[in-house]
């Protein structure tokens, strides 16, 4: 979209000599379809756009946004951002980024093909998914929803200090939520598939995942409380890695909010842990040519063989810490300022499959889903306690399903207690890739 660039240029060109301006302009077009009981429940198609303007002047920063690109709204946002800056605290490290010479990688994140598919075709896909889930298992008694969605999004960030970036990406996804019943008991499960366009979606996998996840907990019981070895499914490991990533933000370190603040070059995890953030990997859902401030994305090694190697930084935190930016600025959209965050975490895989890992566990649990992560994991204290469901492991063999228990430890301890990583790397729509992880000494709390 050249239009976005033009609008951005018009905003940024108004920078006064003693002022820096950043314009972030986003546009997207979304389709979302929900089917239920062999018919369309909802169909929604819309475009939206907006602008976020950051002004730095006299070492103070202000921000404002508008959910439209109407000239009067843009004018409002610029004048409010300028006014807001007057009230902020002066900070010598504030300022927009300047080009650092790192070349952007060419990533193919936009599939023109997505625009070629009709709404009818998308509706059919959702209906087909619903039917596939329905037929997958007799115990599936209803399908709460089957969905198709896609989004084409373009964003431009331009600064008066010389950074300029345009991001284009497409996503297409299907998902289904199934309900399984056996006697008086009900369980639920979901499955999905995500790609850059329709052709990349795996309908059978989405359907069978929903079906398996809904039925596998039927007959589950509450386990007794004990301390044992846990193997996390790749899907669950993704969530854990995303939390670990948030504790490795340079901003959290500077503000005394990171568990790992004073631990650079120390052993913070077991030897099998090597953790890298690499948004230049096109397989990652968080892949992006640039970060949210317009720096070219790059690879950052956070933990190497258990040794803490570094943190993630955006422009402000890197200047304040006196290091180079790792191009780790992220933003939730045009209505918020950038923050620091991981985008494509990858825990180096090991050489064993999940079943090989399980075969070496005497007494343990395969954790297939966790809940209450926001309330139960404190990334500052490290306290970790979440609800879990999964399968019992006895003498290296998978046993009965168990539910309504919690698993607890601390983030610090869990990192040290990782004894193996699987070879089953899976790219999941998250800031981290999934892979099976075996952790010892977890407290299971049940009956």
């Amino acid at each position, binding site marked *: 979209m050249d239009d976005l660039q033009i609008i951005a240029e018009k905003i940024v060109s108004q920078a006064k000599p003693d002022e820096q301006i950043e314009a972030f302009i986003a546009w997207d077009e979304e389709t979302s379809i929900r089917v239920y009981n062999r018919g369309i429940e909802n*169909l929604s198609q819309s475009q939206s756009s907006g602008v976020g303007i950051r002004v730095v002047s006299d070492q103070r920063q202000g921000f404002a*946004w508008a959910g*439209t690109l109407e000239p009067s709204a843009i004018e409002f946002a610029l004048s409010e951002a300028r006014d807001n800056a007057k009230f902020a605290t002066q900070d010598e490290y504030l300022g927009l980024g300047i080009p650092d010479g790192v070349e952007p990688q060419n990533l193919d994140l936009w599939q023109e093909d997505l625009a070629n598919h009709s709404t009818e075709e998308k509706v059919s896909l959702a209906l087909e998914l619903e039917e596939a889930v329905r037929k997958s298992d007799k115990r599936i008694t209803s399908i*709460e929803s089957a969905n198709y969605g896609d989004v084409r999004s373009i964003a431009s960030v331009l600064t008066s200090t010389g950074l300029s970036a345009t991001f284009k990406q497409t996503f297409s996804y299907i998902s289904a939520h199934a309900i399984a019943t056996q006697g008086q008991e009900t369980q639920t499960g979901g499955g999905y598939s995500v790609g850059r366009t329709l052709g990349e979606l795996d309908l059978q996998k989405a359907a069978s995942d929903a079906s398996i996840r809904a039925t596998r907990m039927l007959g589950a019981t509450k386990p007794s409380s004990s301390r044992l070895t846990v193997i996390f499914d790749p899907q669950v490991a993704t969530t854990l890695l995303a939390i670990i990533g948030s504790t490795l933000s340079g901003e959290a370190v500077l503000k005394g909010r990171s568990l790992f603040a004073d631990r650079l070059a120390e052993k913070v995890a077991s030897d099998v842990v090597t953790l890298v953030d690499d948004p230049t990997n096109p397989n990652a859902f968080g892949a992006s040519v640039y970060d949210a401030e317009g720096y070219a994305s790059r690879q950052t090694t956070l933990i190497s063989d258990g040794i803490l190697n570094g943190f993630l930084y955006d422009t402000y935190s890197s200047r304040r810490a006196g290091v180079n930016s790792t191009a780790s600025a992220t933003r939730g959209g045009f209505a918020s300022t950038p923050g620091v965050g991981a985008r494509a975490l990858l825990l180096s895989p090991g050489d064993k499959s999940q079943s090989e890992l399980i075969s070496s566990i005497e007494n343990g649990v395969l954790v297939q889903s966790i809940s209450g992560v926001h309330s139960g994991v404190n990334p500052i*204290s490290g306290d970790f*306690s979440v609800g879990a469901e999964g399968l019992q492991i006895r003498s290296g063999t998978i046993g009965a399903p168990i539910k309504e*228990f919690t698993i*607890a430890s601390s983030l610090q301890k869990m990192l040290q207690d990782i004894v193996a990583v699987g070879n089953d790397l899976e790219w999941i729509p998250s800031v981290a890739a999934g892979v099976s992880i075996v952790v010892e000494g977890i407290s299971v*709390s049940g009956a």
Partner: protein
Amino acid sequence: MISNDLVQKVLASAVARGGEFAEIFVEDKKTSSASLDDGKVEELSSGISRGAGIRVVVGDTTGFAHTADLSESGLLKAAEAARSVALSAQGGIKAVQVGPPDIYSARSLTINPSQIGKREKIHLLERMDNAARSTSGSIRQVSAGYGDSYRQILVANTDGVFATDQQVRTRIAVSTIAFGDTGMQTGYETAAYTMGYEMFDDVVVEELARMAAERAVRKLSARPAPSGILPVVLKGGSGGILFHEACGHGLEADHIVKDSSVYKGKIGELVASPLITLVDDGTVNQQWGTANIDDEGKPSQRNVLIENGVLTDYMWDGLRARKSHRSSSGNGRRQSYQHLPMVRMTNTYLLEGSETPESLISNTDHGIYVARLGGGQVNTATGDFVFGMTEAYLIENGQITHPLRDANLIGNGPDVLKKIDGVASDFSITPGTCGKDGQSVPVGCGQATLRITGVTIGGTANG
């Protein structure tokens, strides 16, 4: 916001190809916020968003489109996109007439936040920063946030609803970090109301900051929470979220009609301890989940969901009510004009009982006193829930003793409701944000101190 003529024109266009219901929802929202972190006024932000969402219902299908373009051509284009689901439909509504709108004004707006200088709003944050830091030398970090929003909505539909409302919300929050030999601990406190800046006539921000600071400091000497099933005394206020999650979501009619609630088919049955009366009430003075009308134009009302343990009703939005041939209970809400409304809670609370918090504690031999619950999550189909305890203590021999580190509680909603054996009379409501299907809306949760005979505590220590 837009003229009556245009409202009529858009509705007529929306049903031009058939369909039995169409609606236009126009929203104009201005927000302002400020944050202080690390001793610095880090960010002031202002934002505006304005647009309309149009939906058309044809049989079991809803077509929806939204636009930020409120001109006649922009709205008609959105109406056309929304009605695309009606291409093959027959019949529907032929004529659309709208009368004059019902005009509602803000619940409480003695002082419009937009009239307050930015300096003064920042000063609130500075006062909280000072108060938190002066509470204890262990407080190492403080972040504080202020926000206000001014939302005007217009809703009109082919059933004859035509209403406008003005919704003003103001909030403040503070987070602290205490540092000691045992590492770092956190504390949080917030106040939020559906009212203007006059909120600060009653809310003493230093008090919030002191509570958040003390919460973090106390946890420095906390023990790991136990593991296993124990009796729990839940302090009044934030504990209300347990009933919002463990039970409220399962009483939303969209889950009922889709068979994804454990409460389906249970009207008239005893589903909770007879001590329990659960209400969802969008009319409670200036609480966070309060509004004059819901986002479908239906006036808010007080709905009794469970009375003395017996399930009396579910919560309904217009769409689900229409299909069940009844009226909406005023629970049709949406995050913004870009979202479809669905069944949502407003302020959900348990009515108070007659005991005292002290007697509930002293009658507990060995258990947990939860003074503040954090967020939670529920699977409505199974009733299984988890919640974070962010301030909790051990109860030993009827006395509150040691503070405990953060941990989750896990249980099953229908099961816990039956295990409540005492409710006190110290009722209060706390604000929260409820997420469902990707949409967030402000809600209130309330309860008086109560006791649950047994819940699984997800700690690491032996119970």
